[in-house]
């Protein structure tokens, strides 16, 4: 500050006011901050992609030289190893990708349908226990997953559900229903009641109103909820680890990536696995960013 004052003072005979100084200072700080945030968010993503192509020997020789050459990129050796079936000495990611898709898609469809019904009822219909239900959802939503994980682990072991993808699907549905219901409920409330009443007067039943009036109007919110549930199920790690660790055939991508973290597997292969699990989420996210950011702030999504 003193430096600025001394340079400004003598020629103009006018001191910079505090307001002027702050406008200049924070104006400059703003761009520095934007650069800072861009670096901390984009660099890890960039580094992950770069390393996934880089030959390990070159990386070990000089960790600072992590940019792959064009030949490294077109060679795709790490990706080939990750995707090659286990029987051929690869990491067998094909199965994990299929498992992850199955689990995430099934959970998404089930959760979205169940949550639409529940959300509509708590938003629009009068019934005893409506308030208790709304609060109950919030409580469950905030409750620690790990406390639920122990008994579920026990039940699934006893019922031998532990070695099936269904166990995981049901758990994801239970874990995401509160979020989905809460998000949809806050959206349904914003739809004018008059529109629904008009439908009722025109002779539609309640379910007819839901199908013809409410659902078309809330398509963006439903899309956001479905995407969000998909992302949660796709990214999930704890329950998959507890339920499926003994059964490599049923592993989801999270577990697949996790088992690459050994001394035998090169870190560049680990990064290729990480890129594979990240890419679908990034594509989905950028395809629907608008919906998602609005949906997130409406429901206050857990993470």
């Amino acid at each position, binding site marked *: 500050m003193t430096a600025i004052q001394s340079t400004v003072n003598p020629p103009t005979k006018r001191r910079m006011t505090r*307001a002027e100084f702050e406008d200049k200072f*924070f104006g400059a700080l703003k761009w520095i*901050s*934007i650069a800072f*945030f861009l670096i*901390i*968010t*984009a660099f*890890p*993503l960039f*580094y992950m992609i770069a390393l996934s192509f880089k030959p390990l020997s070159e990386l*070990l020789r000089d*960790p*600072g030289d992590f940019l792959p050459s064009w030949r490294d990129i077109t060679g795709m050796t790490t990706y080939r190893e990750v995707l090659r079936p286990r029987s051929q000495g690869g990491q067998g990611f094909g199965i994990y990708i299929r498992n992850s898709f199955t689990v995430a898609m099934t959970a998404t469809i089930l959760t979205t349908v*169940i*949550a639409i*019904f*529940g959300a*509509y*009822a*708590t938003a629009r*219909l*009068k019934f005893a226990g*409506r308030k208790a239900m709304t*609060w109950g959802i919030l409580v*469950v939503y*905030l*409750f620690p997953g*790990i*406390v*639920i994980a*122990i*008994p*579920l682990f*026990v*039940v699934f*072991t006893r019922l031998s559900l532990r070695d099936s993808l269904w166990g995981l699907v049901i758990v994801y*549905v*239970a874990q995401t229903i509160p979020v989905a*219901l809460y998000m949809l409920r806050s959206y349904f409330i914003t739809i004018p009641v008059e529109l629904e009443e008009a439908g009722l007067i025109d002779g539609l039943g*309640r*379910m007819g109103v839901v199908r013809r009036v409410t659902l078309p109007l809330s398509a963006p919110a439903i899309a956001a909820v479905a995407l969000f549930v998909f992302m949660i199920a796709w990214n999930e*790690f*704890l329950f998959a680890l*507890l339920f499926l660790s003994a059964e490599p055939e049923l592993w989801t*991508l999270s577990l697949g990536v*996790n088992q690459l973290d050994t001394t035998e597997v090169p870190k560049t292969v*680990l*990064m290729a696995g*990480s*890129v594979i699990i*990240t890419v679908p*989420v*990034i594509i989905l*996210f950028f395809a629907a*960013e608008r919906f998602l*950011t609005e949906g*997130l*702030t409406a429901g*206050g999504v857990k993470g």
Partner: protein
Amino acid sequence: MADQGRSSITTSTDTRKSIAPSGSRLSLQRREARLAWLLVAPAILIVMGLVVIPVLWNLAMSFQRIRLIELQSFNFLSTDVSLENFRRVTGLSRFWEVARTTVAYTFFGTVLSIGMGMWAALVVKKAFIGRSAVRGLMLFPYVAPVIAVTFVWKIMLNPSFGVTNHWLEALGVQPIDFLGRRDFVLSIFGWEVTAPVALAAVIAFEAWRYFPFAFLFILARLQALPAELDEAAKVDGATLSQRFFYVTLPQMRGVLSVLFLLRFIWTFNKFDDVQLLTGGAAGTEVITVSIVDWLQGRSDVGSAAALGVILALILVVLLFVYFKWFFEEETE
């Protein structure tokens, strides 16, 4: 269901015209309530079955001595209950260290992620070219799979081939094993300051991963603030920082307090991040990691359940505070 509703309408209109409207409204109401219950039933059943009952069962197990190996044959209705599990988990001297670590991790992780979110929101509040791209990119840490981002951090921070230490070395700093080193003794003018290295790294990760969450909420609130107040303060000669502290910040109190409690609760419950980054080593063991260690590492289901109950009890207290606060905010 519909038939019953219709028949009650006809009976009420048959008996007397004057009570007909109230009669039909009642049955309509009843019909609506029945439909509502039908609609919420699947959600309630699944949540009950997979959340509420497991929590209660977890409580029951915390009083029983259950080993992982005898799970298939164990009689869960046994009345052989004791507080032994609680004694066992709290008896270890490590328990208090874990508790301290959890509190430090949760508090600093929460405050830093919200602080960074606030900073980011202030920076992108006004439109500029490429803002939506910047905003989208800023959400990456939050939406990316935890497994991928923890491994990227682990490799970046690796002392032998990570890029962070490579750059530090270029600046003349000795390589540091950020995720494996417990303490770092700094001597500043003869004062010896011990800094927990791995814990700080884990907290930094937490702030990095969750600042986008705070950012979204704060940005939404910032953009909804009335511009008049800020302009009036500007006319009165308030500087940028004064306007922030005396005009903007007081209006953000609600969203910040809600964010603080939400993030606090979720960070407190967080398992994957620490587990994947350090596995609880080097002074980063938090309660959730400890629970999984009791469950899988020591094959002691009962003690894991007991520790889970302790975690849940602390959470219930926090939730109570949250709802009280939230409720008061709403009624204000």
